[in-house]
C-alpha cells in the first residue's frame, strides 16, 4: 500500500525553502499519497506543487508584527488544533515540515506518525540578527530531539545544530538541494544575444553569476581580470546580475583601465568587462564560458556553483562559509578555510578576501593564478571539467530524491 505523506510549510511563495518543498511534493507524489499543508498567504500560491493542497485558515494576521503576544499564542494554538484534526483524518505515516515555526507545530501536533523536520538555514547567524526569534531557540532545544529525523541542506548547519542547540548528531542528515540536469541541459541550448554569443565564441570568458551585493564582492573581479590579462590579454569577464554595487564594480574597473559594457550600452567585442544585467536563463552563458569564478565573502549554500558545474565549467571559488568547501573539497574538514591556493578534488579554492589582513591582495593574486592556470593548461582544464560534471551528478534530482525516500522508508 502507498504510504501517506504530509508536508507542512507556512506558504508557497517567496523563498528557497518553499521552492524546495514544492519540488519535493511533486517528486514524492509519484510514489506516495502526498498532502501539502500551508497556513499563511493562502491566496498566493506561486510555486507549482504535487499532491493535494490543504489550506488552514487562521485568525488574525499572518504578519506577526501586527499581533500582540496573546493573539500570536492563540494563532499558534489554533494551528496546532487544526493540524491535529487533519492528521487524525488523513492518517499520515510520515509528517515532514520545513523551517522552525512549522517544525515546532509539527511536533506539538504529533500523534503516532514519524516526524521529520528540516532546518534550512544557519540558525546561529539568523538568531544573531533577529532578537525576536530567540524564543525559537528554547523550543528547538526542548522539542527537536523528539523528532525521528532532521534534514539539513549543508554540513555546517548540522554542526551548528549539534554544537549550539544540543541536538543528537545521529538524527541529523545532510540532503542537498537538487538541480535538474535535464532541464539545465535543455535550457543551455537556448539562443542568446548574437553579440555576446560571438564574444563567448572568440575569447576566453570568465563568468560570475549573482546579485551584485556586498557579500558577493564582485568588485574584486576587475582586479583579478587585470592580473589574468598580464598573461592572457584577450580574456574577458562576464557578470550576470544586478544590484546596488554595480557602480562600485564599474569604478573599480575604470581604476584598472578596463572598459565596461554595461546593460543598455552599444555592444562591441573589444570591451573588457560585460555586465548585461540579470538573465532569467543563465545556463547558455555558463555553458559557453571558459571558467566560473566566485569572490563571495560569505554564502548560505551557493547553488550557482553546482549549476556552473552541471554546465561543465571549471570552478574557482573563494573558500568562504558556507558551501564552497563542501562542494569543491568534500573530503577535507569543513571548518578549515584555505590560506593559499588549493587545487582541490572538484575545483579550485582560494583564500577569502579579507580587508583587515596584511595579505589583502591574497584573493586577487590566487584567483588570478588559478584562472591563468586553467586558461593555459588544457590538461588541467579538462580534468576540472570532468570533475565538475562528476560532482554535479551528486546533486542530481534522482540521487537527492533517493536520499529523501531512504529517510522516509527507514523505520528505525
Amino acid at each position: 500500500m502507498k504510504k501517506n505523506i504530509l508536508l507542512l510549510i507556512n506558504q508557497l511563495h517567496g523563498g528557497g525553502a518553499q521552492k524546495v518543498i514544492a519540488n519535493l511534493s511533486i517528486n514524492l507524489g509519484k510514489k506516495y499519497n502526498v498532502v501539502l499543508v500551508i497556513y499563511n498567504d493562502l491566496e498566493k500560491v506561486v510555486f507549482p506543487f504535487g499532491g493535494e493542497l490543504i489550506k488552514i485558515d487562521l485568525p488574525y494576521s499572518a504578519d506577526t508584527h501586527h499581533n500582540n503576544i496573546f493573539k500570536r499564542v492563540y494563532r499558534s494554538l489554533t494551528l496546532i488544533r487544526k493540524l491535529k484534526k487533519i492528521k487524525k483524518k488523513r492518517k499520515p505515516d510520515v509528517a515532514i515540515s520545513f523551517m522552525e515555526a512549522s517544525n515546532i507545530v509539527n511536533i506539538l501536533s504529533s500523534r503516532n506518525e514519524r516526524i521529520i523536520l528540516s532546518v534550512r538555514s544557519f540558525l546561529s547567524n539568523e538568531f544573531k540578527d533577529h532578537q525576536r526569534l530567540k524564543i525559537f531557540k528554547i523550543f528547538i532545544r526542548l522539542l527537536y530531539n523528539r523528532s525521528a529525523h532532521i534534514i539539513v541542506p549543508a554540513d555546517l548547519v548540522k554542526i551548528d545544530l549539534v554544537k549550539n542547540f544540543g541536538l543528537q548528531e545521529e538524527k541529523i542528515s545532510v540532503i542537498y538541494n537538487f538541480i535538474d540536469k535535464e532541464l539545465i541541459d535543455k535550457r543551455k541550448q537556448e539562443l542568446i544575444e548574437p553579440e555576446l554569443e560571438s564574444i563567448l565564441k572568440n575569447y576566453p570568458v570568465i563568468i560570475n553569476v549573482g546579485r551584485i551585493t556586498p557579500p558577493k564582492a564582485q568588485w574584486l573581479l576587475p582586479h583579478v581580470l587585470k592580473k589574468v590579462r598580464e598573461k592572457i590579454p584577450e580574456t574577458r569577464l562576464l557578470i550576470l546580475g544586478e544590484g546596488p554595487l554595480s557602480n562600485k564594480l564599474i569604478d573599480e574597473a575604470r581604476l584598472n583601465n578596463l572598459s565596461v559594457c554595461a546593460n543598455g550600452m552599444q555592444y562591441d567585442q573589444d570591451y573588457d568587462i560585460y555586465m548585461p544585467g540579470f538573465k532569467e536563463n543563465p545556463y547558455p552563458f555558463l555553458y559557453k564560458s571558459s571558467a566560473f569564478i566566485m569572490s563571495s565573502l560569505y554564502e548560505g549554500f551557493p547553488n550557482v556553483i553546482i549549476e556552473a558545474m552541471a554546465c561543465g565549467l571549471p570552478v574557482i571559488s573563494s573558500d568562504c562559509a558556507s558551501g564552497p568547501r563542501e562542494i569543491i573539497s568534500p573530503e577535507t574538514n569543513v571548518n578549515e578555510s584555505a590560506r593559499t591556493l588549493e587545487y582541490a578534488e572538484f575545483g579550485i579554492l582560494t583564500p577569502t578576501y579579507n580587508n583587515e589582513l596584511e595579505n589583502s591582495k591574497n584573493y586577487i593574486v590566487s584567483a588570478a593564478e588559478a584562472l591563468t592556470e586553467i586558461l593555459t593548461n588544457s590538461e588541467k582544464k579538462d580534468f576540472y571539467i570532468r570533475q565538475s560534471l562528476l560532482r554535479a551528478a551528486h546533486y542530481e534530482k534522482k540521487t537527492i530524491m533517493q536520499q529523501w525516500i531512504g529517510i522516509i522508508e527507514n523505520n528505525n
Partner: protein
Amino acid sequence: MRILFVHTRYLQSAGGEDTTLDAEAALLDAKGHVVEILLFDNATMGKGFGGKIKAGLNAIYNRQSAKKLGDTIKKFKPDIIHVHNFFFTASPSIFYEAKRRHIPIVATIHNFRLICANCLLLRDNKVCELCVNHSFPWYGVKYKCYHKSAIQSAIVGSISSVHKWIGTWNNKVNIFLTPAAFIRSRLIHSSLKVSPDRIVVKHNFTKDPGFAGGESRQSFYLFVGRLSEEKGVEILLEAWKGMTNNNLVIAGDGPEKERLVNAYGNLPNVEFIGKKSHEEILELMKKCRALIFPSIWYEGLPLTIVEAMATGTAVIASRLGVMEEMVTNKYNGLLFGAGDPTQLAAAVVAFNMLIYEKQYSIYNAARETYLEYYHPEKCYCAVMEIYNNVLSIDRKN
C-alpha cells in the same frame, strides 16, 4: 581681477555652452571684475581632401588663433585666461601662447571630446566607451563617429591625441574644470592621464527664477529639450501610451519632431508645443507636476535640470551618467532605468502616488539642491576660489 574668456562658437544652434559662457561673464562683470571675451567662429571645414587636411592641421595648431590671442593679451593684460570651447578654430595653440606670455589658464571641459570622437560617448544611440582608454580613438574612425566620416573622425581624434602625446594637457593647462563630478570621474580614468587634482568640479548655474511649491501645481508632466534620439523622447512617448490620467507637454524642436508627431500625435493626452522662450519654459516648469528627463546619453550638465530645480520642480530622470549625480531617488525626484518605457511609466505612477499623499517635500528638496549647488552666489564663490588658487600656485612657481 582681469579675466579673459576664450570661446569658439559652434556652427549649429547655440547650445548650453554659449549660454554658460555668457552667464559666467555677466556674473563676474556684475561683481566688479574686468571681463573680456575673445570669440572664435567655426567656419565650415574646407572642401576636398586637401582642404580637410588643412582644416585638420589648423585644428591641431592654429597659428593665427595664437597670434590673435597674443594681441588680445598685449592689449587687455589679463590676470587669468578661462577657455571654454577651443574646438576647432581656436585650437590648442592658444594654450601655448598663454604659457609663453606667462598667463595662467583654466579650461572648462563641457563634453567628452578629449576622449571620444563625437564627444557624447554615444554610438548609434547607445552609450559607447570603446575609445576612453585609447590615446587615439581608433574605434571612432572605424565606426565613423564624427559626421559619419572616417577621415573627419580621424582628424577630430588626432586633435586631442597629438596633444596627449606631446603633453599639452599636462603641461600647458593649469586647471581643468568640469561642470559635473561624472565628467571628472570619466576623464580621470581615461587616456587623458591628467592628474586628478588638476581636474576640479565647478557646477554651472542659472539665475534664480523663484520657487513654486507643490500646492500651486497642475497635474501635467513636462519635457523640455531638443527632439532628437539621444534625448530619449521616444521612450517617454512610448511610456505615455498606457497613461490616461496625466497630460504630457513636450516643448522643443528638433530633427525627430515630424516623425514623433506622426507616430504619437494622436495620443489624446500629449501636446507638442514647439520651441518656447526661456521665460515661457520657466513658467511651464513652475506649473508642471514634474520634469521628465529621459536622456539616453551621459549628458554634460543639463541646464534644463538645473532650471527645473531652481523653480523647485522635481525631476524624473534616467539612472545614467550625470542625471544620477543631480537627482537623488525619492529626495528631489525619481530615477528609472535608462531607455526603459515600462520603468519610466512606473516612476510616473509612483510620483502620482507621492502627490496624492501630498508629499510636497520633494519640491522643496529640488529647490534645496539648486540653492546648494547651482545658485549664482555658490558658483561665484567656487570660481573665485579656483582662480585664486591657480594664481597663488602660479606665483609660487
